[in-house]
């Protein structure tokens, strides 16, 4: 068992090093691409460096996901308080309804409303990213046993203490799963953001598609896939460490529905 787990660790380290070298070392990338695409002359996309595109991609996702998580979480908490409870059916209904919208549709509509570039893309990612966090916050808080809340109130806790000490700790796992879904969707949608001029890893994929250069497409696709898989893995570790050491870290992770 022990030998196997250290083998997994070694594999991960190797994968990480290979991925890092692929992104940051141009000569390493050129070597790999030359083996895979012997017929292609232009292997390296020169207009923008891969690390720069990766940086753009991560800042798109980070900015939009942090804002979306904050907004979705606050709205979710608001509609489960007594002052906002009137809005609960409406928010739940609209949010479920809006989740049938494809993320790429929201992204495409950002252009007519806000124009081209980085900021419209962040706005679109933000708008769609709210939904999984919101849904899971509501679901997590609503699934807390009413008896526990009454017990907390019976002990003389104020409403904010009930929220902070009883409801949120019990709902945390589901809420984090919502954030995970939201981040993974945003990493995917940000790739398409290149079509509205947001930069990011989609840039080199689109350039490859336009110029019929498979090496470019491969470069962007592998990097984007690596970022998504690494992020998902990080979240699963996080869930494992904080919530349930026995569990594989997968349960409670509601589908990455509509990953785009």
């Amino acid at each position, binding site marked *: 068992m022990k030998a196997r787990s250290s083998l997994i660790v070694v594999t991960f380290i190797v994968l990480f090093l290979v991925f890092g070298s692929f992104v940051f070392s141009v000569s390493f990338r050129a070597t790999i691409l030359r083996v*895979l*695409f012997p017929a292609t002359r232009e292997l390296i996309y020169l207009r923008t460096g891969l690390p720069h595109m990766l940086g753009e991609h991560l800042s798109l996702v980070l900015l939009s996901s942090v804002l979306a998580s904050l907004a979705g979480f606050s709205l979710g908490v608001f509609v489960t308080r007594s002052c906002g409870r*009137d*809005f609960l*059916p*409406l928010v739940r*209904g*609209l949010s479920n*309804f809006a989740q*049938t*919208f*494809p*993320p*790429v*549709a929201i992204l*495409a*509509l950002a*252009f*007519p409303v806000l124009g*081209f570039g980085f900021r419209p893309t962040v706005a679109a990612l933000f708008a769609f990213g709210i939904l999984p966090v919101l849904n899971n916050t509501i679901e997590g808080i609503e699934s807390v046993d009413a008896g526990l809340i009454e017990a907390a109130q019976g002990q003389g806790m104020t409403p904010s203490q009930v929220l902070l000490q009883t409801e949120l700790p019990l709902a945390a796992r589901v809420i984090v799963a919502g954030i995970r879904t939201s981040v*993974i969707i945003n*990493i*995917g*949608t*940000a*790739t*398409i953001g290149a*079509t*509205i001029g947001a930069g990011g*890893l*989609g840039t080199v*994929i*689109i350039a*490859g*598609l336009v110029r019929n250069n*498979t090496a470019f*497409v*491969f470069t*962007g*696709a*592998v990097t*984007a*896939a690596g970022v*998504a*898989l690494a992020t*998902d893995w990080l979240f699963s570790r996080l869930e494992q460490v904080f919530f349930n050491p026995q569990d594989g870290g*997968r349960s409670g992770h509601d*589908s*990455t*529905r*509509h*990953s*785009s």
Partner: protein
Amino acid sequence: MVTDSGATVESWLVRKPVVFAVIIGATGVFLPLFTIREHRLDGGTGLSLLSASVPYSVFLTACLMVPVVISLVRMPARVRAGFLAGIGSVLIVLPWLLAATIGSSVLVERELGLGRVAPAGGFWFLILSGIILFSEFSRAAQGWTGTLLVVAISLCLFVMFWLGLLEDIAFIREYRVREERFFSELIAHLRIAAMAVGSAVLVGVPAGIASYRYPVVRKPVFSVVSGLQTIPSLALFGLMIAPLAFLSQRYPFLRQLGIRGIGNAPAIIALFLYSLLPILRNTYTSLSVMDPAVIEAGKGMGMTQKQLLFMLEIPVALPIILSGIRVASVQTVGNTTVAALIGAGGLGNFVFQGLGQAAPDLIVMGVIPIVVLAIVIDRVFGFFIGRAIPGVRTVE
């Protein structure tokens, strides 16, 4: 429901969402209802309902006051719900007619024969307030009334479109120019999505049953399939290109089948891989949540393993599996849009063409049918899942 202050006020009606909807609707009267564009790439000038037509502004404001007023008058709850539904429907339908007719007259007035009317913020705000009022009504209404009204509203919009009342609306213009191509792309879109989901059902359901029967395969199958789901769609499409191009170069018979690096083949394969997870997971879940007592009863009756599977397990599992197919279908209809970037057909062609030409109306024209498709598919599955739940016949 009776409040402390008296029996006349019913609390669901003076609920905050109704007030919220009224505020949004009132804002919509002041915001630009539409923009007038001289040509398809023109930024255009906005015109609010208030500045375009005072009588209609007064009429819509009066409509918006109705939900507030009726909450202060004593009347049966059914009548109130009716009022709410009526006002909601008016707010959803009327903006289309107003934008089209007022917009057309402005075009004539300014002598802009090739100009167009693009719906703007006020238009969408009015419709949003209508949707909120409508969903507040649906909560109070029983059974089929809500569905019937949705059908009536859609029919109303379609008739307006059919009679040619909406011709000056910008994205309808874009549609008219490419009517024939629209239908061929729509069919291509549906065909790609259907082939992907169909093959995912053929593979995912047996794989789910296998993971349930043989716990050894569960973990590897699930981690591979959920890993695939994590990869960005554009990246997965991109990763399909190189191997498929290689294979089609190597084996001519594949090329004859139309399999190349770009086009429909990589799109369908990638979308198929995407659809696997919801179907696989729900199949597995449906089998694992089954009540062991039911299985025992079946065994007690002398059913064979095969009979158990086909006569007990599958009928009980069907609604859960169907919801997996529902998620996969809605998701695939959306992701098929992205497939246009690798040369597959479908409605995504309009969207990305619109982005390429910086033509907002073309984008909207492409996005609307995609969203409508996703919603319709979601609702149709919802209906059948409601039917498939044993013993339950009226599930929303």
